């Protein structure tokens, strides 16, 4: 027989957990709480459930409430360091808190918690939202390829042994750890500057570099992982169109012909790529492991 030391009213485990979880995850204290009429009622509940001792019951709950938001903000900051830099600490945290309120974690894993952030940025009303959405999309692509299976690597020597007939029907299999992104803003350029330590924050209003970020300028980037290395290959819109066709499993020659004819929708000046440049790009794509094999 175990000793009973409780004087609190009986509450089931589920009721108690539901109560504490609501208190811990509410964004801004009593005003947003559901189902509790007044601050006085809330305090009565708190005193009913939580031992105070050397720290007030409210302060004890606050430890967990603070931890909930801090942990999720930290998770988003880990996944989106360039976006955090671009927005500045205060603006990024405010963005994260709004995001957390709309997207409470629904999985036991935090690995993919930040996935909807790019989409969410794009719906924000601020002047920086479109650029932020594309930068977030790029950073999420990096996260995705880090967690993606690497897959086989296309053997470039095998390509050299193909007959002309085989070349005409050749389809390439993209690596599972490859993402192709087309942007209206120079997101990949900014990300590289961030990596180099030279990226301006959007909060520096007087900075010409920062303002330039909010001016549309088409760009594209392929993100791919091989082993420990994550590659970011910046592409012209024309090369991005070609790579897009190949990723979509178009036969190589058909893709080249379609691309060369301008049928991909790329404007004529962009489509003009010297054969040597095309060859070099293709070699880069193969050597960086963008393809896993031949279909």
């Amino acid at each position, binding site marked *: 027989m175990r000793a009973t030391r409780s004087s609190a009213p009986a509450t089931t485990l589920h009721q108690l957990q539901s109560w504490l979880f609501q208190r811990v995850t509410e964004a801004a204290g009593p005003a947003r709480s559901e189902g509790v009429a007044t601050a006085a009622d809330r305090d009565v509940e708190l005193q009913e459930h939580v031992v105070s001792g050397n720290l007030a019951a409210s302060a004890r709950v606050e430890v967990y409430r603070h931890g909930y938001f801090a942990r999720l903000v930290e998770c988003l900051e880990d996944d989106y360091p360039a976006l955090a830099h671009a927005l500045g600490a205060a603006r990024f945290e405010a963005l994260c808190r709004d995001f957390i309120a709309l997207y409470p974690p629904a999985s036991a894993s935090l690995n993919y918690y930040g996935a909807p952030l790019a989409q969410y940025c794009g719906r924000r009303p601020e002047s920086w939202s479109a650029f932020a959405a594309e930068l977030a999309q790029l950073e999420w692509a990096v996260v995705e390829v880090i967690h993606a299976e690497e897959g086989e690597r296309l053997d470039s020597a095998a390509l050299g042994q193909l007959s002309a007939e085989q070349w005409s029907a050749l389809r390439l299999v993209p690596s599972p*750890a490859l993402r192709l992104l087309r942007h209206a803003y120079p997101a990949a350029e900014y990300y590289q500057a961030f990596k180099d330590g030279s990226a301006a924050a959007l909060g520096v209003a007087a900075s010409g570099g920062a303002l330039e970020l909010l001016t549309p300028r088409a760009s594209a980037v392929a993100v791919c992982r091989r082993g420990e290395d994550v590659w970011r290959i910046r592409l012209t819109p024309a090369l991005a169109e070609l790579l897009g066709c190949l990723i979509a499993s178009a036969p190589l020659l058909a893709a080249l012909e379609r691309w060369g004819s301008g049928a991909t929708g790329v404007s004529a000046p962009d489509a003009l790529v010297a054969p040597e440049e095309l060859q070099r790009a293709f070699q880069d794509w193969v050597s960086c492991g963008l393809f896993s094999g031949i279909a």
Partner: protein
Amino acid sequence: MKKKRFGLPQLGFGVGLRSVHYQHILSERPQVGWFEVLSDNYMHTRGRPLAFLDRIAEHYPVALHGVGLSIGSSDELDLGYLAELRALRDRVGAHWVSDHICWTGVNGRHGHDLYPVPFTEEALRHIARRVCQVQDYLEAPLVLENPSTYLEFKGSTLGEAEFIAALLEESDSGLLLDVNNVYVNAHNHGFDPLGYLRQLPLERVVQLHIAGHSQAQGYLADTHSAPVADGVWDLLAEAVRLGANAPLLLEWDAEIPEFAELERELDKAKSRWGAEPAELGS
């Protein structure tokens, strides 16, 4: 429990595996007995983290330590989580699997924190039943850690140590005794840490944790961000003297220093006993 520590091996002194140390570990092969792997970081990935873990597990013994099992939740057990956990355990040949006596979410939502359980008969029966389910699924003992907590429920009818002792006995599970957590909880809830240790079935200790904590406003925070406090070293010595003879692991999760500092911290443990922990407490 038929055999001491369920027959699990004495792995000696280890440290928690953190990604900032991957390259150092693989290139320098530091002299540590084993690594504890945060299972949740490797369960929903098929990419780079898992590739590093595979390589490290080729050279070192590993054990899995999780934060997402939510064994104390009133929600249903997450069978998908369990399947991933078992697959990871089998993939890296982990010697055992541990998690915390806590809950991390309810009503299908997740807080990603270790929330305290009320020490009631209802919670005891509920958690013991779930531990048995998990052990059946894993076909191995589950090792449960006493978590650091910042609040206790008025509805509790048992003390923390009494609750843990009963849970381990009823579910025939192992204990991961986190000595820092005992120290932190004793301060935060005002109990005697030695009395707490004496109530635990220390023959069930499969693993020991030590870590640093920090002083917050009015309480101690289990931050794993500093060297182990003197009081924790003293409490560890008491735990060992009372029979908690098990592999020892240093956790460091925030403001993570270079690997050499972790080794120096482990050396403090070694210098206290002058031997591998097989002889600790003998």
